[in-house]
């Protein structure tokens, strides 16, 4: 996962790219004949100092290696604080990435 966060004028802007094939049910069916081989990220959460700053429930319809940009209020945070983003997919695999807010 690539993760960048920048604090400017009281707002933290984040850009992230998760590495995931995001295989849809139809793609799985075509590839292996089994719909259940579909696998895609289903939930993403981001925290700074244990405070939730982003919370997304997701589907198979995000692009492969999905990109997300979002922003959150920065007044309670400062440069150097760590943003931690975790995703989980349909099969239960998780990945966490941390990045310092610049």
């Amino acid at each position, binding site marked *: 996962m690539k993760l960048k966060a920048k604090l400017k004028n009281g707002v933290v802007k984040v850009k992230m790219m998760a590495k995931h094939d995001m295989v849809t049910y139809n793609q799985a069916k075509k590839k292996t004949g089994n719909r259940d081989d579909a696998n895609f990220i289903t939930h993403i959460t981001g925290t700074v100092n244990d405070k939730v700053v982003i919370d*997304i429930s997701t*589907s198979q319809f995000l*692009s492969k290696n999905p990109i997300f940009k979002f922003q959150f209020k920065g007044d309670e945070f400062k440069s150097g604080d760590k943003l931690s983003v975790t995703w989980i997919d349909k099969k239960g695999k998780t990945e966490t990435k941390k990045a310092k807010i610049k």
Partner: protein
Amino acid sequence: MNRRKFLGFFGSAVALSALPVNLSADDYRKLKPKVWEAKTVDDAIKSLYGTTEMIEKGVKLKLPKVASSGGAVPVKFGTKIPAKTVALFQDSNPESAVMVYTVGKYDLTQYFVKIKMGKSGTITVVVEGLDGKLYVAKQSLEVAAGGCEG
């Protein structure tokens, strides 16, 4: 985030360090599973919010008029309305729900994502206001090359 609660969904018995109780993360995949099975946009909205009564204002939505690749359509959307959730739907894939943001106190509700569109169609963004009302914006686009749909 609360990894114990997170992994607890999957019956994991791994003990993790205790994390503060003030974490909250709403997984709408678990809270409202039917939303993700709905085939039409109206059915998905009804399933998620209980109604399809929406006000067409206050929601920004920016898309290309033509997307060269249906596999990665850039969508920029957001709102200044104090919101509880923001949801994205489309009518070009087998199911219509794409994602649901749970808006916490820090989230500024300005988003960008890239999504799959199986063919030309309409993208719908619904904002669930803290005032209990639903706000909506829709926009259509053409997909030049048949995209990787569901």
